[in-house]
């Protein structure tokens, strides 16, 4: 069924797969009617989908370097778009984004704008040119364009710092979902998640990851959109929520004005379990300063263009032209989920706070709320909490607390959807976290195996040996990530945002100027990567240890400082040292033209 003209059969193969998945959902909902327990349904969903990914991973096994590193450069634009969307949308996007919008409103929306706007930079500044270059990894481009082992090595360092920060959060997310769905302790669930991740990527490298990511995208987008549409229809909010929730948005504003945002005393807040928050920010009003919004959006956009696990997806397209188009498709598939998250946040918030809706709990008596089934479930899961601070017996807006994840996880249950939807959402979250973790671990392992081992340490190594090294590194890095994830140091979102800042601090300008400024040379690039990363990291440490920061740059936007230092260092050092030689200049000229051979050979 696979092999041979597999590529020509892609629409058919994934069409059957999608149909099969929908049939599976229907079978599960029939099983639920017949009395299957919620727990069994959750296990079925996660186990079934992970098994499918593992099978795809096995079928994609390969012994060729270009298949392992860049999926043989034959992934069609639309499918590469789906794979990139899955690669991109992490467990955080899936589980935490709607929650972030729900609690923080406008200030958080900067992330949506940033995480999509960055793709314009990817498409126009970088992806097509790096595709023409024909590199296997991002450091491969830096190393060849600027020359020398040191520049290559510095790029590997930046890549590893950024991606590793990111990957621990993803492994953490797979662990959280596996622990809930399979009902096992988190410390073990992390390793269950890790093994699932490695099953996709070990045998087939980039090829395996590509075809599992497409499958994971299909699962995660169904799992996200189906509940949003269903809830909207069930609430009578509108058949197509994206175009029809204006009344609901203004109703929330009305209720906010009616209830007011009462500030709780510090003493009262001590009662609230860690990680839960109340509604303290307006839903649709602009409540952040322009610079706070713009700086966060800008940091995320430049970070997007510097994250190697995204960039390397565009190395897999058949041509430069396809790489450009593929960025558009990627963003389209991302848009489907991102534009739905605010709608889910709106529906979730209104269903909880509107006293005129049957699900609304604000204004009910505390005792009544505490006796609701779903409240008890999510209170037990440590995601919901109410307390009668003012002692009047009824629940006020400021007395209701919820975890960010609950918006995605609990809203279907609150709206009265069958449990099968909750199982589906668990499978979607798992798909989102796994696909991103796979991309990241592969990016790190490939950079170390290709750029450090093959290009620097042992350039004579045979393909078989290179691929063994690549796979060993994959496992080692995966376990290192899982071990750190098991320690639970940072919240999911905190470390995700840092990854963008690290990446932009060290890599944005060395990458962009490598294509767009011929005069950029090795010394400049090394200075740019090194000083950018170090100054960005130093700023983060300074702010985290009580530093006041400057220009409104926070620990979430430290990349703005890092990349500014990187730019200045790179330009100054480049101009102070010799211009790149004629061969390098000619190479840059060739990169700028889509036609002709790639700079690096097919197998290198």
């Amino acid at each position, binding site marked *: 069924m696979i092999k041979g003209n597999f590529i020509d059969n892609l629409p058919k193969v994934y069409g059957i797969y999608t149909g099969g998945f929908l049939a599976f959902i229907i079978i599960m909902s029939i099983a639920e009617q017949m009395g299957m327990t919620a727990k069994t349904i959750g296990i079925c969903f996660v186990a079934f989908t992970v098994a499918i990914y593992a099978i795809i991973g096995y079928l994609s096994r390969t012994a060729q370097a270009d298949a392992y590193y860049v999926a043989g450069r034959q992934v069609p634009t639309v499918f590469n778009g789906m794979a990139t969307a899955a690669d991109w949308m992490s467990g955080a996007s899936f589980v935490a984004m709607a929650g972030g919008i729900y609690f923080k409103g406008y200030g958080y929306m900067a992330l949506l704008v940033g995480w999509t706007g960055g793709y314009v930079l990817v*498409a126009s500044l970088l992806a097509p040119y790096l595709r023409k270059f024909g590199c296997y990894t991002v450091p491969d481009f830096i190393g060849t364009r600027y020359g020398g082992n040191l520049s290559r090595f510095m790029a590997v360092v930046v890549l590893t710092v950024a991606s590793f920060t990111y990957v621990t959060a993803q492994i953490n997310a797979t662990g959280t979902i596996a622990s809930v769905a399979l009902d096992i302790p988190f410390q073990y669930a992390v390793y269950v998640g890790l093994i699932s991740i490695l099953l996709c990527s070990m045998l087939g490298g980039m090829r395996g990851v590509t075809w599992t990511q497409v499958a994971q995208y299909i699962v995660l987008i169904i799992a996200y959109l189906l509940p949003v549409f269903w809830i909207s229809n069930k609430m009578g909010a509108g058949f197509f929520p994206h175009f029809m929730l204006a009344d609901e948005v203004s109703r929330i504003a009305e209720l906010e004005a009616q209830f007011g945002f009462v500030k709780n005393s510090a003493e009262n807040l001590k009662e609230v379990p860690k990680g839960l928050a109340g509604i303290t920010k307006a839903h649709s009003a602009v409540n952040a300063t322009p610079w706070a919004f713009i700086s966060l959006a800008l940091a995320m956009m430049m970070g997007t263009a510097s994250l190697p696990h995204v960039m390397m997806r565009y190395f897999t397209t058949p041509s430069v032209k396809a790489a450009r188009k593929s960025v*558009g498709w990627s963003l389209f598939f991302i848009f489907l989920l991102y534009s739905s998250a605010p709608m889910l946040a709106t529906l979730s918030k209104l269903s909880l706070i509107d006293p005129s809706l049957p699900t609304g709990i604000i204004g009910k008596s505390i005792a009544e709320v505490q006796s609701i089934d779903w409240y008890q479930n999510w209170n037990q899961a440590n995601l919901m909490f109410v307390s009668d601070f003012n002692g009047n017996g009824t629940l006020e807006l400021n007395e209701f607390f919820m975890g960010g994840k609950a918006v995605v996880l609990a809203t279907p249950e609150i709206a009265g959807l069958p449990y099968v939807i909750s199982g589906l959402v668990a499978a979607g979250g798992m798909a989102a976290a796994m696909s991103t973790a796979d991309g990241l671990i592969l990016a790190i392992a490939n950079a170390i195996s290709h750029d450090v081992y093959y290009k620097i340490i042992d350039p004579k190594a045979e393909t078989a040996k290179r691929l063994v090294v690549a796979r060993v590194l994959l496992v080692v890095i995966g376990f290192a990530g899982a071990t750190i994830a098991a320690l639970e140091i940072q919240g999911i979102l905190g470390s995700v945002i840092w990854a963008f800042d690290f990446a932009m601090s060290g890599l944005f300008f060395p990458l962009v100027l490598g294509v767009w400024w011929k005069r950029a040379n090795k010394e400049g690039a090394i200075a740019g990567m090194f000083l950018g990363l170090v100054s960005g990291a130093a700023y983060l440490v300074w702010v985290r240890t009580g530093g006041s920061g400057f220009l409104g740059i926070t620990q979430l936007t430290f990349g703005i400082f890092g990349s500014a230092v990187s730019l200045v260092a790179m330009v100054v050092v480049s101009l102070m040292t010799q211009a790149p030689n004629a061969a390098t200049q000619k190479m840059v000229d060739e990169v700028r033209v889509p036609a002709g051979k790639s700079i690096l050979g097919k197998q290198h």
Partner: protein
Amino acid sequence: MSKQEQHWEKSKGLLMMTLAIWFVFSIGIFLFGAEMNEVTGPFGYPLTYWFTCQGSLGIFVLLIFWFANRQEKIDEEFGFSERGDD
């Protein structure tokens, strides 16, 4: 000017135009976020809120496809497009 230089000049022009549109919808309009939110936007949402939920995001999608098509035209014009694949 050689063919290659002309091609690059045109490509740079397209880049500048793309980045200008990108700048307006990712940064420019949010300088006036509070003022714009007083206006009712598409589908009845407050305007700035709409841009952050759908507007800017959708414009970026269209912008990338537009950019890709324009760049292809430029490549074809100078005979620099790749042969035989899509």
